[in-house]
């Protein structure tokens, strides 16, 4: 087949494929800017005729709605936002701490032999739903339900396997001789870890942190089950009000847009490393 024709076909397919990839996101974002009258028109409008930022304002302050309606969203997103931030940041830091230490031990000392890494892997495979019930019981006993602590601990648990595997692959990239040189120089094992090897993996750590942050931020199921009125996160917030006020496309779309900004931004930032994370370090692009 002629090279140019192939190129044309190739570009054609790609352009055709881009459209459905992008469209849903575009639709939601554009709806977020639409005034109420454009939400459910006779014919869907592609581009808001009268763009407004009111929907976003309503998110933070329900009384800002210029339209009066008995079914405006009654609560601002503030609490959900705060919770999402706290849980994402807290969970990330703790998971990173535990996981990095363990990853170093596994990488350099083969800690846990062959079994432990395998077990950690298996935890990743487990659907959270299966583990949730006994955890609910335990948390009820500790009074950890609907608290920041409880959720951070839980998120840390679920994300540990990923942290361990990612960081292990980063540690594996630092040649063992560097450790040995440091030891001979006079550093202790901890000193070698903290001063010499760890700095070499700062990029890897940053990537892992961003990935975990995104995962916690995006989590829905765990938050749904384990939070109630004080610790609910943004996805739960959205679900609740979608169920309650489903027709309010505008504000809900605004919430959705707002919610996906961090994951999209962070995801794009670390896309080079995504493959490594998904395949447990087996493939490095």
């Amino acid at each position, binding site marked *: 087949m002629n090279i140019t024709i192939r190129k044309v076909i190739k570009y054609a397919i790609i352009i055709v494929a881009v459209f459905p990839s992008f469209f849903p996101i575009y639709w939601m974002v554009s709806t977020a800017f639409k005034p109420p009258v454009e939400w459910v028109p006779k014919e869907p409008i592609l581009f808001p005729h009268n763009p407004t930022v009111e929907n976003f304002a309503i998110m933070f302050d329900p009384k800002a709605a210029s339209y009066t309606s008995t079914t405006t969203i009654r609560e601002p997103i503030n609490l959900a936002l705060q919770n999402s931030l706290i849980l994402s940041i807290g969970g990330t830091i703790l998971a990173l701490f535990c996981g990095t230490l363990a990853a170093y031990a596994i990488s350099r000392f083969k800690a846990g032999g062959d079994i432990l890494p395998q077990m950690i892997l298996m935890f990743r495979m487990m659907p959270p739903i299966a583990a949730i019930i006994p955890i609910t019981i335990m948390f009820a006993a500790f009074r950890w339900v609907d608290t920041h602590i409880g959720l951070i601990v839980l998120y840390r648990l679920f994300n540990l396997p990923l942290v361990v595997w990612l960081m292990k692959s980063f540690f594996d990239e630092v*040649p063992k*001789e560097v450790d*040995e040189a440091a*030891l*001979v*120089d*006079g550093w*202790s094992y901890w000193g070698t870890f903290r001063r*010499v090897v760890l700095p*070499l993996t700062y990029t890897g750590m940053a990537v892992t942190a961003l990935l975990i942050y995104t995962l916690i931020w995006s989590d829905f199921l765990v938050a749904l089950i384990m939070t109630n009125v004080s610790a609910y996160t943004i996805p739960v917030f959205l679900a609740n009000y979608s169920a309650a006020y489903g027709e309010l496309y505008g504000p809900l779309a605004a919430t959705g847009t707002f919610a996906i900004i961090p994951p999209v931004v962070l995801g794009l930032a670390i896309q080079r490393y995504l493959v490594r994370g998904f395949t447990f370090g087996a493939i490095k692009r």
Partner: protein
Amino acid sequence: MDCVAVKSLTKKFGEVTAINNLSFECREKEFLYFLGRPGAGKTTLLRMIAGLEKPTEGEIYIRGNLVNNVIPSQRDVAMVFQNLALYTGWTVYDNIASPLRAHNVPKSEVGGRVKEVAQLLRIEHLLDRTPVTASGGEKQRIAIARALVRRPQVYLMDEPLSNLDALLRLNMRVELKRMQKELGQTIIYATPDQLEAMSMADRIALMHRGDMHQLADPETVYVHPATKTVASFIGSPSMNFVEGSVSGAGGKTILDCGAFKLDISKFGPAIGAMAAGSELTLGVRPEHLSVSHEKIAAESLEATVIMEEPLGSETILHMKIGKASLNAIVPPNFETIYGEKVWTSIDINKIHLLDPKTEKVLV
């Protein structure tokens, strides 16, 4: 006092024996070379002295102290690795200062010592950069500086020059030797390059598959190799070996090599009584064979030319006498063609006789 002493040292990795019951001492201010092929056990030995590997059996002493259970940072040794293992995230200054900082040397002192060493190795201009930007030779010197700055008891170097190009390697060799003499350091150095060892070592320890075949100064190793391994390893081009058997005729001991015979009566006492027919291997270095186009001496042997390797300053001549292959060194202007018959004589005072079974050199 010996700087480093090793007794009955054995190291096994699972089924494989890397080091087999070794004992030796390295003297103060000595430049000791571990010479051997890859896999001989040189690196393992160095690592055990440094404390990075634990011996399966045996003891290691540094300056008289048993250090088997002492961790590397407290053994007061410095090591230069084959792949240098520089800290890529740190500046060169930090790299060199690392051992000082690890031992909590006061900050005021660190700066001075680092600069001193950097000056010695002429890398001061690199101090603020990261090692990635340095050239091969410069990286080498950074690694050496890092080892030097501490003034440890003994320096361990594992093929530090192997990643450099040939010319740079020669220069660095000279530098190292000069430095060692000037500063009076004790260095244990591992290399597979026998030229390097011969030119720089005070003593050479030849290792092969975990055994130490000989420990002696370069001249001894060259003139009196202990085993066939040593004999074939040292010297370039390497020694010729011809198998033969002993026979007695008319009160003389003759070595029958098939294509030719040699009178080895004068070595009688050295080889002891040998029954007729017992096997003996002849070893003779190419530099000890002289070749000419005419039969000059009575004992000259006739050989056929197989190939010439002109090296510039000399030529290696590959010959065959019957089934035996021999190489000889001839002057560069020696003209010959393939298949030509030439005459070669063996310098009988410089030959070696080896027991084929034990591979020990008897003469």
